[in-house]
């Protein structure tokens, strides 16, 4: 078509159609009928079709080594050359499908959720912008365009989180998300530049070959790797930059589903998956610990939260930690697998919570109650009977996230846990990693089922509100059903039907590549380790899942154990967890305030000292100089010299005119004197 290669053509369309939708909606959106939502939906559905056809193509070819690169030269200055383009392989295709699918679901879900919103067309425009940016990250073949789209995704996130910017908390949340991302991006950029300085190219393939040739090695490589990883820390909300994701829940729920569950935060994982070959073993160790710790720590916060979206937010942070952990221990394909399954069930969970919140909103609105929080789970209860579709779809997704067999989550989580266990078996000093992993699994099962039990089971504590709860319309339940369906194991194990084994199209088509860092274990060695620990991991994971679900059931259904009593007994721990370990407060006290103080001090030096004295001093000196010059010119030159000349002539004339006395005798005298003088001169 355009470029002659159908893969490149499709990639171009997939990339730029959402951008076209963005442009149209931003410029003329408000004037179009229905405010232009059909433009965005049309664009995203076409994108979805194109991505699915690429997926189909992948299935038909069944080539695990498939890769396609299309590039063009952007800047060529001889020694300095930057080429941009696309890199399409099986991972890319799967990721494109994920992005397009979840984005389409978000577009459809928002039809009802944001009906009558004050900035409807702009919202859809921004969704288009985000899809464009995310696809840009997925298709990038070099670090520079990746970075550009990375930033664009950050911008879209900011715009969408702060969609209802009249609410100060929403505006602040958007700002926080963007700035925290930027902190991570500093490290990211340093990493990119280190790579470029050592290897001379931004292109992935050239970077990999450069690393394998040893152009960059040792601690510098680790540093670069950690730098690149910092981008993922920021984008995927890992410790210590996890603070923005819970606050990002201020945005509309479909946005939370799209960006903060399935795609944008997954970009960090995608980055580490793409760049896995160049991480040194030290960098990978750091990655593993960051991921593992985040998984455990975020889960420990989720158990005390009462806002339904906050629970899901911390759950996302925790699951992302899982993925990062998997990359760190070397099993990065498991991380990608989990990314895929997590996208499906987490988006489903978010949509479900959106459905619940939507119902709560309507009910409270009818009751004219503006004080009750529609997102607080303590105000819910027993919704199972009123919202059956939402209930069943969310339950399926929860089963998936808890790692229960027959569901997709079990397969991917199992792979990750097996990877961590295998790693620990190989390096027994890193026993913490599987501890983090399995611990987080237990806690995840616990709090996810807590969410389900508190929302849908039991008795409602607000009967009046409960009476008016009703199921959501089709446009909202359709994504729920689709995604919950995709949370079942079978879609990932085709053409095999074993629910306990992850063997399927995924594991056959998407194979791990070797690390190009000399001295790192090969994919084969890693795979061996995983395989070794597989059955132990499976047993352990089933155990911990059961523990978590069981505890939750006892506490919230059977009420055999009291949550309040436990909270009181572990008062200090409860408080820590409930207040998110006081991270935001400490950051503010030890980072933000001192930095603001420094800024103020610098501003003081600049404004009150430098400007006032130095700059103004210059001004004053100049003014004084010009005044002086003026004086010299006016009084000195003009008055003294110019006027003086005139005055002296005048004075001279005045003196001279005294000669004209009018007296004859004086004239005679002068004549006489003149004669004398002439005579004297003549004689002499």
């Amino acid at each position, binding site marked *: 078509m355009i470029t002659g290669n159908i893969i490149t053509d499709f990639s171009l369309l997939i990339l730029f159609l959402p951008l076209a939708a963005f442009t149209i909606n931003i410029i003329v959106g408000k004037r179009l009928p229905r405010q232009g939502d059909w433009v965005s939906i049309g664009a995203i559905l076409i994108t979805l079709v194109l991505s699915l056809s690429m997926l189909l193509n992948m299935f038909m070819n069944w080539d695990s080594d498939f890769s396609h690169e299309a590039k063009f030269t952007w800047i060529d200055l001889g020694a300095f050359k930057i080429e941009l383009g696309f890199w399409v392989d099986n991972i890319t295709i799967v990721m494109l499908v994920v992005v397009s699918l979840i984005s389409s679901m978000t577009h459809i879900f928002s039809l009802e959720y944001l009906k009558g919103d004050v900035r409807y067309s702009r919202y859809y425009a921004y969704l288009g912008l985000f899809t464009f940016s995310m696809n840009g990250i997925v298709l990038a073949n070099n670090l520079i365009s990746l970075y550009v789209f990375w930033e664009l995704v950050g911008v879209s996130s900011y715009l969408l989180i702060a969609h209802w910017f009249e609410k100060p908390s929403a505006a602040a949340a958007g700002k926080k998300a963007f700035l925290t991302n930027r902190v991570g991006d500093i490290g990211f950029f340093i990493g990119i530049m280190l790579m470029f300085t050592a290897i001379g190219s931004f292109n992935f393939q050239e970077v990999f070959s450069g690393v394998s040739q040893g152009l960059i090695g040792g601690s510098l490589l680790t540093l670069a790797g950690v730098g690149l990883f910092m981008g993922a820390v920021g984008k995927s909300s890992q410790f210590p930059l996890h603070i923005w994701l819970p606050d990002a829940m201020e945005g509309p729920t479909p946005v939370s589903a799209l960006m903060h569950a399935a795609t944008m935060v997954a970009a960090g994982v995608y980055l580490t998956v793409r760049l896995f070959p160049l991480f040194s073993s030290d960098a990978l160790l750091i990655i593993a610990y960051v991921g593992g710790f985040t998984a455990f720590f975020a889960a420990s916060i989720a158990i005390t939260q009462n806002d339904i979206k906050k629970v899901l937010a911390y759950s996302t942070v925790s699951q992302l930690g899982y993925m990062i952990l998997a990359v760190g221990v070397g099993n990065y394909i498991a991380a990608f697998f989990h990314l895929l399954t997590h996208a499906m069930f987490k988006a489903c969970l978010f949509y479900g919570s959106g459905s619940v919140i939507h119902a709560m909103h309507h009910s409270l609105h009818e009751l004219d109650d503006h004080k009750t929080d529609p997102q607080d789970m303590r105000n819910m209860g027993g919704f199972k009977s009123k919202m059956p579709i939402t209930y069943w779809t969310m339950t399926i997704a929860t089963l998936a996230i808890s790692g229960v067999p027959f569901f997709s989550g079990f397969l991917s989580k199992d792979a990750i846990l097996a990877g961590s266990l295998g790693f620990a078996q190989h390096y027994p000093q890193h026993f913490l990693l599987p501890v983090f992993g399995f611990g987080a699994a237990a806690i995840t099962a616990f709090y996810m089922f807590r969410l389900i039990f508190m929302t849908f089971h039991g008795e409602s504590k607000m009967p009046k509100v409960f009476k008016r709860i009703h199921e959501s319309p089709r446009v909202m339940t359709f994504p729920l059903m689709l995604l919950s369906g995709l949370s079942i194991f079978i879609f990932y194990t085709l053409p095999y039907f074993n629910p306990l084994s992850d063997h399927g199209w995924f594991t056959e088509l998407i194979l791990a590549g070797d690390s190009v860092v000399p001295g790192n274990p090969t994919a084969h060695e890693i795979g061996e380790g995983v395989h070794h620990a597989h059955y132990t991991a499976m047993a352990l994971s089933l155990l911990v899942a059961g523990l978590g679900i069981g505890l939750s059931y006892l506490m919230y259904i059977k009420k055999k154990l009291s949550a309040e009593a436990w909270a009181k007994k572990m008062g200090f721990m409860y408080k820590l967890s409930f207040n998110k370990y006081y991270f935001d407060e400490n950051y503010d006290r030890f980072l933000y305030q001192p930095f603001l103080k420094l800024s103020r001090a610098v501003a003081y030096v600049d404004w009150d000292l430098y400007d006032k004295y130095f700059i103004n001093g210059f001004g004053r000196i100049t003014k004084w100089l010009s005044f002086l010059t003026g004086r010299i010119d006016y009084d000195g030159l003009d008055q003294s010299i110019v006027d003086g000349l005139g005055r002296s002539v005048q004075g001279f004339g005045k003196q001279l005119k005294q000669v004209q006395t009018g007296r004859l*005798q*004086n004239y005679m*005298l002068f004549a*006489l*004197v003149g*004669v*004398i003088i002439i*005579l004297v001169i003549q*004689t002499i």
Partner: protein
Amino acid sequence: MADFTFWIVVGLTLGSAFMVVQSKNLLYSAYALLFSFIGVTGLYVFLWADFIAVVQVVVYVGGILILIIFGIMLTNKITSVNISHTSVQKGIGTLAVLGIATLLAYMVFSTPWIELANVEQEETTASIGRLLMMDYLLPFEAASLLLLGALIGATTLSRKED
């Protein structure tokens, strides 16, 4: 004897001339002028210019001096006494005059005059008359014209405006 008389006459002339220019009283100046004229006449006699000497006495003393005295009388305010200074710029004047005098004297003494022999003269009157009518007729007529003009002019000038 002649030298002595000569110097007396010279002294009279110069002394009177000095008085003329020095006196504060105008009438005294006029009288001094008289004596000066007479002295000059004496000098003319010494120079064997008999006719001119007589003309000098008649015209100068008898005519001009009388005129001057008339002028003094007519133009003096008898009632008011306002003779503050009778002379001005005396200092510079003296210097300038002395300078001129010095220069002239220097010229007189340094020029090699060709002195011709003393020739006793007959009466000069006849020769003057003869010269007037023959060689110097034009100046004679011009002089008479001039006198006419002066006459008319003086008369016109001193007329009262009607």
